[in-house]
């Protein structure tokens, strides 16, 4: 900020507003503008839209319908199925990633050789974009893919089976996202104080005992963080069904956000879509709060 800016500030400020307030607002302004325009306004506007039969081409001609959209949600079987399938997906992925993440973190921390290679292998899928991940796995699940090659006798073609498609997406997701769990749990494992183990060793405790009695309890907060953050993130699953199955077969991989996308950008049911978005948000906030209080209870 040049001196002329300062003179400008002083003049603007005058006697009424002190200079620190003006500077404070100027520093805050760039972020506040994008925050208001691209986050706060849409959030309020979405609530407004949810009370209309929204006309996509001529928003002015939208018809006010009150709570009609919300009443429709209560009877919308497709939405209920999508919600249940989303919970199923979370249930398939989050516990698996937590356990696998702990195993990976403990393994890498045991002073074995080649940890840089292992970290690369576990973490590199996480920095790959979902469309590349999805197309890779479509190939692996395909007729000549490596997964089908070794498991066809047991599963057949995973992505064309209504009861196996969702677990198939879950497996892909575990591969893709477990790096996040691994990174956080590795940091947690590395911050467990060594002296705890020395005392236990003197008492003759074995590795399994020490893992169970010291390591896991010491990592508890991070494990809880992974479960909560993982639940919220996985609840928002979209790319995998979009790229790999298009919600099929027979709608069996349609998730909450996938349905939201369908409403907003395929059938252009924007008012109803906005209402569905709000309901999903309320459900997610409720899950976070329940998680939060349950954990407060158990930790204290």
């Amino acid at each position, binding site marked *: 900020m040049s001196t002329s800016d300062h003179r400008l500030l002083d003049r603007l400020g005058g006697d009424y507003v002190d200079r620190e307030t003006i500077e404070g607002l100027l520093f805050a302004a760039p972020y506040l503008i994008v925050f208001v325009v691209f986050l706060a306004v849409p959030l309020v506007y979405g609530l407004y839209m949810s009370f209309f039969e929204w006309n996509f081409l001529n928003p002015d001609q939208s018809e006010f319908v009150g709570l009609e959209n919300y009443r429709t949600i209560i009877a919308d079987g497709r939405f209920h199925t999508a919600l249940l399938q989303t919970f199923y997906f979370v249930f398939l992925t989050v516990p698996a990633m937590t356990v696998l993440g702990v195993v990976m973190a403990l393994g890498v921390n045991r002073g074995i050789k080649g940890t840089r290679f292992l970290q690369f292998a576990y973490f590199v899928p996480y920095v790959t974009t979902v469309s*590349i991940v999805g197309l*890779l796995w479509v190939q692996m699940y395909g007729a000549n893919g490596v997964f089908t090659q070794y498991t066809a006798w047991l599963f057949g073609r995973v992505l064309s089976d209504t009861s196996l498609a969702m677990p198939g997406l879950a497996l892909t997701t575990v591969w893709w996202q477990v790096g996040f769990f691994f990174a956080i749990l590795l940091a947690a494992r590395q911050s467990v104080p060594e002296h705890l183990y020395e005392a236990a060793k003197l008492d003759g405790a074995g590795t399994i005992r020490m893992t169970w009695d010291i390591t896991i309890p010491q990592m508890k907060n991070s494990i809880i963080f992974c479960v909560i953050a993982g639940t919220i993130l996985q609840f928002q699953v979209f790319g995998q069904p979009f790229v790999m199955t298009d919600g099929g077969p027979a709608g069996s991989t349609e998730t909450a956000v996938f349905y939201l996308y369908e409403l907003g950008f395929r059938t252009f049911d924007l008012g109803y879509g906005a209402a569905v978005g709000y309901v999903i*948000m309320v459900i997610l906030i409720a899950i976070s709060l329940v998680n939060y209080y349950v954990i407060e209870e158990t930790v204290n």
Partner: protein
Amino acid sequence: MSLRNPTEHDFEFDVPAIETLATYVTAYGLGILFLIPLYQMFVLSITPTDELGSFSWFPEDVTFAYWSWVLFEQPLIYRWIFNTLLIATVTTLLVLVFDSLIAFSLTRLEWPGRKLVLGIIVSSFMVPAFVNIIPLFQVINQLGMMNSYWAVILPFTAGPLGVFLLYQFFRDIPEELEEAARMDGFSTFRIYAQIILPLSVPILSALGLFTFVWSWNQFLWPLIVLNSDAMYTIPIGAVTLQSVYGEFANRLMTMLAIVSLPLFIVFLLFQEKLISSVQLQGTTG
């Protein structure tokens, strides 16, 4: 070490040896399993079409025809890499500037309402981004930004994560430093630019790297606002390849391999830093 009783040695050696072996088998077993999809991508990209009819770990013949086909005859790929690079770079710069400015303001300057502003920003963490896609689409449309780089960049910069991370970091920088600087006649902006920012390089680089990778990889939002070949980012463009080259796994995999290379290189260069930037989120959450 010299005069150890061999029996006792064997006895003591057993359990740790088995544990070490089990650790190696598990850790490397998982590591190798995890690399299979990427291995498949590269192997298929050099497999001739007449060998695609059946599965094999190693093709009998190897061809780089598809690599040269993509590299020399598919200019659209370069356009997508350029778009993605541009969007990710501008997003990262804007996030670093916007977030550090407001975090500085919230921690270093007294102004009425700043606590409320902080409270609102932090509580917006609760709002999952996808809730906004439908109204945000309307806003972008009204602003005439459809199918532009800004439509992808600006909504991303509104996210609260960086503000929160930097707020916590700036708060813990001791006040004495800037008091001394004020005595020396530093302006507020110089305190921000010459004292606070240099002290925050580690967190700024972590946030920057993280933002770059996530903006590079974002999928749902660009899918909605970008609608022409020439504007696509890599994640969106890649999906369109499936319908065109889905029949030819080798062509498709070559394209995927090439478009994923830039980020693999970033990852190899910054592996430790990137992992620690993810860990950072665990400690703030």
